[in-house]
């Protein structure tokens, strides 16, 4: 029997960790690289899916998008309002919810679980429900507003003027549980005796909130901000299932534009270039976050 001087490194870890890594790597990194390549070509969707990549045309797609496409600036602006609006709204409501659920009461666990509902249910159900409730003819919210005298005529929630607000609200509604959960986790880590000491010293609720709660929540704000942007920026379902980016480009956000470029305009290369721009923006944002927030 041959003996070796050093034991051969075991292949066992590879067997354990390999498959998962391989799956994710193959599925993500090769296609992503491929997409970048496609963004430098002119590729159209054809019947035959085997002819996938067209001729190389360098940075033309990007040039077209940035300088010649009238929609593009609007879409970039929309992506800003979409993302910021979502985070602001869900951030505020989520904080309120977390503060309430931080109180001890019977059924606290149940309430915390129920609170997660908007996040867990399918986006289709969410949008069907809200579209129904906001519908001009049969929507319960319209009828309530009518009864309260807030709106004599049915409001066009998904129309040109209010479309963006509405879709932001819908998505914020969906996203609130995630935010609230993060806050709850952050709030749990604040030592209770700080509050007691402050109370003894005569600090009011508001002062306690401002001087103890808020500073302790700073890291949570940062996490919610970062992950919030990542989860919101490229989110397709809500806008697609309500307005499809319309009317016109009123609610058009990048992921919807990607989809339309690929499957309505049949230009895979245009879609690819938009995707690359999206990814670049997000990477830059993540990088900046890590740099300035020490995450």
């Amino acid at each position: 029997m041959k003996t070796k001087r050093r034991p051969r490194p075991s292949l066992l870890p590879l067997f354990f960790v390999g498959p998962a890594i391989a799956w994710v790597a193959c599925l993500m990194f090769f296609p992503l690289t491929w997409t970048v390549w496609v963004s430098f070509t002119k590729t159209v969707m054809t019947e035959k899916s085997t002819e996938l990549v067209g001729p190389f045309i360098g940075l033309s797609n990007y040039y077209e998008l940035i300088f010649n496409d009238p929609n593009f600036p609007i879409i970039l602006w929309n992506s800003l309002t979409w993302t910021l609006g979502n985070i602001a709204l869900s951030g505020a409501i989520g904080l309120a919810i977390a503060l309430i659920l931080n109180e001890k009461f019977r059924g606290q666990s149940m309430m915390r679980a129920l609170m997660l509902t908007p996040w867990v249910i399918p986006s289709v159900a969410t949008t069907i429900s809200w579209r129904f409730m906001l519908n001009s003819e049969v929507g319960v919210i319209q009828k309530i507003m009518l009864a309260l005298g807030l709106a004599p005529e049915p409001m066009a929630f998904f129309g040109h003027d209010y479309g963006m607000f509405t879709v932001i609200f819908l998505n914020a509604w969906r996203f609130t549980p995630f935010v609230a959960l993060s806050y709850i986790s952050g709030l749990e880590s604040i030592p209770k005796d700080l509050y007691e000491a402050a109370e003894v010293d005569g600090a009011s609720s508001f002062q306690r909130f401002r001087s103890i709660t808020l500073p302790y929540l700073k890291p949570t704000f940062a996490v919610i901000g970062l992950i919030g942007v990542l989860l919101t920026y490229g989110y397709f379902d809500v806008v697609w299932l309500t307005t499809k980016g319309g009317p016109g480009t009123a609610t058009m956000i990048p992921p919807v534009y990607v989809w339309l470029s690929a499957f309505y305009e049949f230009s895979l290369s245009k879609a690819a270039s938009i995707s690359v721009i999206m990814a670049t923006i997000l990477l830059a944002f993540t990088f900046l976050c890590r740099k300035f927030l020490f995450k």
Partner: protein
Amino acid sequence: MKKLSTRRLLTIIGIVFIAIYSLFPVYWIGITSFKPAREIAGFTPTFIPMQATLTHYVNLFGGEYYFQQYIVNSIIVAVGVVLITLIFSTLAGYGLARFKLRGKNRLSDLLLFAYVTPPGVLLVPFFLMISWLNILNTLGSLILVYPAFTIPFATWLLRSHFEQFPPELEEAAMVDGVGRLGILRRIVLPLSGPCLAVVVAYSLISSWTEYMFAFTFMRSETLKTVPVALAHSITVYHVDWGLLTAGAFIAVIPVLIIFLPMARQMMKGWEIGAALKG
């Protein structure tokens, strides 16, 4: 009688608000699905059906909408994804927890990166991949793609969980000559019930509710998954709200049934943990 403090009162109001905020949309599609069409279209909204009916559900499964086909499709995809996720993530989570690997943290960063990449960015890449593999319009395309999202999260979860196992237990078994895989199978896994349940639930819910890729990859009517079929009905047919809400409600109920008890359990555990700390 005990005086109700302002704080207590505010808390109660807050709880009511949270309940309405979170649950009203689900409640609304639920009761609407049991209202006859006349009542849905009526002028005054009713919060409890005046005349409950099952017609919408009957239409959903009989008639022109063979909703059961979509449910079957979704189930097939879900089962496939759960199996793949369970196997791959358990192995990877255990491997990352127990083995010394060079670049181990870089590997888990890689998985994290995969997890936070927005699906919108991955639409074109995945589409290219699936087209090239020529499996567009098959359920397999979804079973291939969904684990890219579920595996990272599951691995991270299982890794934290395995790392908390006292190593002595496994070391004892290793001395007895049981291999790593055996240890996993016979010692660690039987004790990991709740964590595995979370992985299963997460994978199930993710595949059941996913819309964008299912919508993009599936072209045939008979291969659609539940979310896609529902979304399609909004745009194509004149809107039959009773039917639509019934379908939506069916999509929601399994998720809530699987998810709520588990979530409540986790929240309770969290409370206990926090109480122990403070």
